[in-house]
């Protein structure tokens, strides 16, 4: 159960409710978001979210899979910090 900080890079459609869904999916499982940064990309219809969370590899993998299942999520990548 080795907890580490992971940075998730999410590209999402720039639509209302998307941020809430993503944050809710993570916080609803009892994980604390350490840093959250949302901004536009060159394509104005796409936003980029950088989310740092503390968790085990297995939990973070599961969160990524759940994020990818979301209707407005285009792509998620992660790296250990």
């Amino acid at each position: 159960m080795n907890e580490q900080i992971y940075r998730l890079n999410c590209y999402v459609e720039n639509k209302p409710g998307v941020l809430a869904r993503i944050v809710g999916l993570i916080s609803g499982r009892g994980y604390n978001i350490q840093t959250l940064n949302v901004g536009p990309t060159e394509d104005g219809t796409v936003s980029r979210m950088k989310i740092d969370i503390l968790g085990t590899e297995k939990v973070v993998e599961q969160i990524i899979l759940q994020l990818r299942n979301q209707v407005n999520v285009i792509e998620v990548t992660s790296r250990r910090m």
Partner: protein
Amino acid sequence: MNQNAKRTGAQALVESLAKAGTEVLFGYPGGQALDIFNCLTDAKFPFVLGRHEQGCVHMADGYARSTGKPGVCLVTSGPGATNTITGLATANIDGIPLIVITGQVPMSLIGTDAFQEADTTGVARGVSKHCFLVQSADEIPEIVAEAFYIATHGKPGPVVIDIPKNCQQALTSAQYPERVSLRAYHPESAATSAQMNRLAKLINEAERPVIYAGGGVIASGAAKDVATLAHRAGIPVATTLMGLGSFDERDPLSLRMAGMHGTPAANWAMNDADLIIALGVRFSDRVTGKISKYAPKARIVHVDCDPASIGKNVSVALGIVADVKDVLTTVLSRVKSATHPEWTSKIDGWKKSHPVTWSQMHPNVIMPQAVMEAIDKATGGRAVMVTDVGQHQMWAAQHFRYSIPRHFLTSGGMGTMGFGIPAAIGAAIARPDHKTVAVCGDGGAQMTFEEVVVAVEHKLPVTFVVINNGCLGMVRQWQELFYGKNYSGSILTVRGRAANERLEQDLKYDYLPDFVKLAEAHGAEAYRVIDPAKLDATIARAVRSKKTTVVEVIVEPRANVYPMIPAGKPVSEMVFK
């Protein structure tokens, strides 16, 4: 209609729902949905008025479970919308496609704590697959098309469309799209040829294989393919609760249901297997028990359409994200005919030595398990069985032989009491060709009994069987086994209540309510049966009736559901009585 002709957003909604294939709409009106209700009288599909929004969503859910098509429901803002939450959560966890349309206050009032304003998409987000908040009437046709697409593609689920009143009233010429293409959502995924070869090799080399079939088999329409694979490769089949009906339980290869209240043969076979072919399952904690001791000798192959479910609860040797039916039809040609005589005879031994049975506790008191057998007999095993949640749900799973997909409808993941009555109404509307029987507890029946009126109004020949044990039986069972027989808050009769409830023990009534009078007040034909000798005949009579019938069966209150693997325990701790 002229391409440029304008109509209101509400009219565009009703027109789009028809184009999307809506056959029936369940719902309940209110101020912020009145513009939509106003055009329903011209709609191409009929409307069914429920009596509580939770009931309306469960009706749409019953329709969806029995047909595989999305159930559609319409309610008003605020309390109408919040009353749908239990129904959404129930459908969401079981992967049932629903479209729930909620009225919303006009956009100019959103955020002002207006009358009957609730943040519906905010509240519904965690219990639905997706939520839309409409911003303009022009969006409505496209959002309806997208909602139906999302509800039915990937792992199915409920989708909420929240429509502010001004968008219902505004004029639009937007048309229903020919095709849906979502930028970010592409859930289709297929197995690779390497995965198929590996799967075939694992199957061909296994000595003690088990197929473990779940709700995903039914959702993907793969029951026939499961049977073909099982018969070709001689593989016994266990199912989850949600998978009942995906494999004929009368087949010699059937192990019936696995899990906490599953058959010893199913649980022991999974425990001993060298290969588990898991199809459309989630590996719920109600099945795995103690996860570190689950299927210790087996390699697990997991096929599911949801990438997030693979490897979530158990580690797998091979995970395939794909439609179950596609995988089975492809792999079949690579699977050799085989039998496993040693394995199947070991399993047959377990089936003979430890069948799931019951015995009479008092000669004059009906055992609840006997009711399920009576329903099986009276309907030739062909009824659409809908259950509520509790002991009777497990007895319905254990003591009726399921053989047809979409003939066992139950709230598996959420375990929602109150599901049974409205879900049975939705199923009966969807499948008039089949007899629908709802089995409910006395507790759960009181949660949504008001919906019985809907069955009567629509002349649905549903039979609602209330298993009256005078208690919240499943809670009482846990208290008996794990809480030192301290029956706190679980007794429904006056006698036997815990002292802190401060009821006078000499109250005139014992069993309340009188379900026969209650049913008659709702316009249904009602029967009560107390004598074991009259059980079969009463059930048969109710099932044959062309009217909506309610049968109250007074049963043994001390009966427990066995076998049982206590929560979080390994298979070795299964208890039989």
